[in-house]
């Protein structure tokens, strides 16, 4: 009996320990990043304390001892955050590693042995806690996160000017609150110098931000500042404090109070778990609704022309736009359920970066932006491994050792940034470093060596296309990468994985300055805006995101618009010469026509003009695959130039053009669309 109970408790202990360790790890990383913020230290302290308690009662003495010392240090930090040093951070990290190790031993049932490492750790902790705290800060200062030194400097420097601490509370505006902050910040910048903001880097924050504050140094008076703020805020609360208020603690009290009230509100938000299949089913139904909605819109066009006097018809015409609106809203809401912030995978990286840096002897600072950017859950899960790969590569082969960097005149600490943002219908995740970069010439010689390109091709390729060779399978193996001082390990795998998600990988690099690798992913907008075009009796949809302009070609302007260069037809658009593809010829549908529309489209800066007979109009389409039989690695193979299908209002299928695919197969099989000059 006793044994069973013990096992049960042990299991519980292990579970709890995992959670506690995870939170502590997060906390120590935050401490490293943001310094000794009170809440973080408090949380850290609580976790260490509960782990100590449970370890003690289970009889796991080493864990209890170690956490006890951690507790002491944290307590000290709590009272004087100023003593936080790299040493302490390091010590905390090592302690966590040791705790994890000890936890493993508990799980495996290994006996506790003498561990000199722990003794050493305990000793180091002892040294720190016995030291007298050197700096002391007043409570007031801490509340607005100004050190006493900062406050003193402010007062000395700005005797002529006013220093205001302004707190904002957004009650009415619920969407894109960070943009309100950005707007206010931008307007206030004209009035004085923004010294500090909460949250830090206010101009980079995105998403919800019900509360924020700024410290501004200005020549203006309160009422003027108030007026400027009022111009961009509607009915929202803000309070302006002077430097005296700060010293009296008034601002601090308010700040704390508001902040607490918001964190409580956040916690009380309710949520339920839903089976992902149900969400998919819902999504499918919404898709059907959108198809019917488009049908209604089409029908309503007919009614408009026919029956102006029919009251019922008029009522219908008024209802349909509303249905349109609701369907679109409904679609967005359902999409939203599937969305997850990119930050949820970003947060797994600090630890990884720390570990790889240590192994490789690099000093790397990791920065994030756009953590709130949302992406479809399933895509997000698939992106993690490629990202790990890219991050590993960036540290291993991109960022130089501190010595080397100093020789090159760079700061010894390398910078690695994980950025995410939305661009049109894509989400972009970027891994960017300020390391050695990749030399296109070295890639060229490597590719020649590997037989991936011929010498002639090598001459013709620009540095962009050369960089892309890294993504080719067989470009590099682990031994070739190091002497390249570049990338390559499994980069083709990264590309393959991203392409499976309908995404793309883009590389830019400046030798000596660094490398940026962007993963461009679809938002999985199962419903997109598209332009419907017609060619030889068939309708095709082109996603609007790939279209720049539509140009009418008729007898009068034909010769001006379409030119022939080296027996290939081209179009000059905004001073660019871009290839012309006649859709009918590309699809082998028969003779071409001399009049019609040019769809100027492009992906990744590569442009193409596609000539079609007619343009039907814009509409929302539900993106569907071509089924189980057509596509890459499927029974009937890939269909060049087609990325999927959609259902039209009349129930028939229309194919979706793939601009990128057309560009690709145009490049490859240029002959099939090459056309003799018509000479007319």
């Amino acid at each position: 009996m006793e044994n069973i109970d013990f096992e049960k408790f042990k299991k519980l202990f292990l579970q709890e320990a995992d959670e506690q360790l995870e939170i502590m790890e997060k906390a120590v990383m935050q401490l490293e990043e943001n310094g000794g913020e009170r809440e973080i230290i408090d949380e850290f302290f609580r976790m260490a304390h509960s782990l100590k308690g449970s370890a003690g009662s289970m009889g796991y003495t080493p864990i209890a001892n170690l956490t006890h010392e951690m507790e002491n240090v944290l307590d000290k930090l709590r009272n004087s955050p100023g003593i936080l040093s790299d040493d302490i951070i390091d010590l905390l990290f090592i302690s966590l590693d040791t705790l994890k190790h000890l936890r493993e031993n508990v799980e495996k049932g290994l006996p506790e042995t003498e561990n000199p490492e722990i003794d050493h750790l305990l000793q180091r902790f002892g040294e720190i806690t016995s030291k007298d705290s050197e700096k002391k800060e007043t409570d007031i200062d801490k509340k607005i996160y100004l050190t006493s030194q900062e406050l003193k400097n402010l007062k000395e420097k700005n005797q002529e000017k006013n220093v205001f601490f302004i707190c904002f509370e957004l009650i009415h505006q619920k969407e894109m609150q960070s943009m309100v902050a950005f707007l206010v910040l931008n307007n206030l910048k004209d009035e004085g110098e923004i010294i500090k903001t909460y949250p830090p880097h206010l101009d980079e924050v995105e998403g919800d931000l019900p509360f924020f504050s700024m410290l501004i140094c200005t020549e203006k008076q309160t009422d003027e500042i108030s007026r400027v703020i009022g111009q961009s805020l509607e009915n929202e609360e803000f309070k302006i404090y002077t430097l005296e208020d700060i010293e009296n603690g008034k601002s601090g009290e308010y700040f704390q109070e508001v902040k607490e009230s918001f964190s409580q509100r956040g916690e009380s938000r309710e949520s339920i778990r839903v089976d992902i299949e149900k969400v998919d089913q819902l999504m499918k139904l919404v898709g059907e609704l959108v198809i019917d909605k488009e049908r209604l819109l089409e029908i309503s066009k007919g009614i408009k022309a026919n029956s102006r006097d029919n009251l019922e018809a008029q009522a219908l015409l008024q209802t349909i736009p509303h249905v349109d609106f609701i369907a679109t809203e409904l679609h967005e809401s359902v999409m939203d359920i599937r969305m997850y912030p990119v930050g949820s995978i970003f947060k797994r990286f600090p630890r990884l970066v720390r570990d790889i840096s240590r192994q490789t002897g690099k000093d790397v600072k990791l920065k994030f932006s756009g953590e709130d950017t949302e992406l479809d859950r399933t895509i997000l899960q698939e992106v993690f491994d490629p990202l790990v790969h890219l991050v590993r590569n960036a540290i291993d082969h991109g960022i130089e050792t501190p010595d080397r960097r100093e020789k090159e005149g760079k700061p010894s600490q390398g910078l690695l940034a994980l950025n995410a943002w939305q661009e049109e219908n894509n989400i972009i995740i970027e891994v960017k470093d300020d390391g050695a970069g990749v030399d296109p010439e070295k890639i060229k010689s490597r590719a020649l060596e590997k037989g991936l390109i011929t010498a002639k091709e090598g001459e013709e390729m620009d540095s962009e296309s050369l960089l892309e060779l890294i993504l080719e399978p067989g470009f590099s193996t682990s031994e070739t990468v190091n002497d390249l001082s570049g990338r390559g390990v499994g980069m083709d795998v990264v590309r393959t994985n991203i392409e499976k998600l309908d995404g793309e990988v883009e590389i830019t690099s400046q030798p000596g300055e660094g490398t940026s690798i962007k993963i461009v992913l679809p938002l999985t907008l199962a419903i997109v805006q598209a332009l419907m075009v017609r060619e030889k009796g068939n309708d095709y949809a082109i996603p609007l995101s790939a279209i720049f302009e539509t140009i009418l070609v008729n007898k009068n302007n034909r010769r001006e618009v379409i030119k022939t260069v080296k027996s290939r037809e081209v179009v000059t658009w905004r001073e660019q010469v871009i290839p012309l593809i006649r859709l009918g010829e590309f699809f082998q549908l028969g003779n071409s026509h001399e009049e019609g529309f040019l769809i100027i489209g492009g992906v990744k800066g590569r442009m193409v003009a596609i000539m079609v007979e007619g343009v039907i109009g814009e509409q929302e389409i539900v993106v569907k695959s071509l089924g189980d039989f057509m596509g890459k690695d499927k029974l009937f193979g890939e269909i060049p130039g087609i990325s999927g299908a959609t259902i039209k209002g009349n129930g028939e299928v229309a194919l979706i053009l793939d601009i990128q695919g057309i560009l690709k197969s145009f490049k490859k099989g240029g002959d099939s669309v090459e056309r003799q000059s018509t000479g007319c």
Partner: protein
Amino acid sequence: MAKNQQIQLVTFQLSGEEYGVDILRIHEIKRLKEIGITHVPRAPEFVEGVINLRGDVIPVIDLGKRFDLENKKVDKETRIIVVKQEDKFIGLLVDRVNEVLNVDKEAIDEPPREISQVNSFFISGIARYNERLVIVLDIGNILSPRENEELAKIAR
């Protein structure tokens, strides 16, 4: 004594020959006139196009072209038989649907080796029904990606 096991064959006409498919494989039969087939450019020649099957896009293949038979013009008898294999649907364009036959399993012979018109790969047997001979198609093989290479040969 157990009754002879029977299967139900839906039979159809293709270039003068009678073919059959196990009824359990058939999802539905549609008139060509009822639905618009969307041509898919640069697809294999035997792919007639794609249709909308209750919101899903599925391909329709022309069995005549695939088997290299003489092609009959599309007319009001032309049908699309939608067959199902492991959750995948495909439409088969046939000249005419005949009837449903109950055939004893014993009355289905192995396909003869030197079968002339249709590649033996797609054929699971020859059913004898009174005086008629019905070629029984193996839908699994038509739809199985494992046999990709075999198909590629035929596609050529």
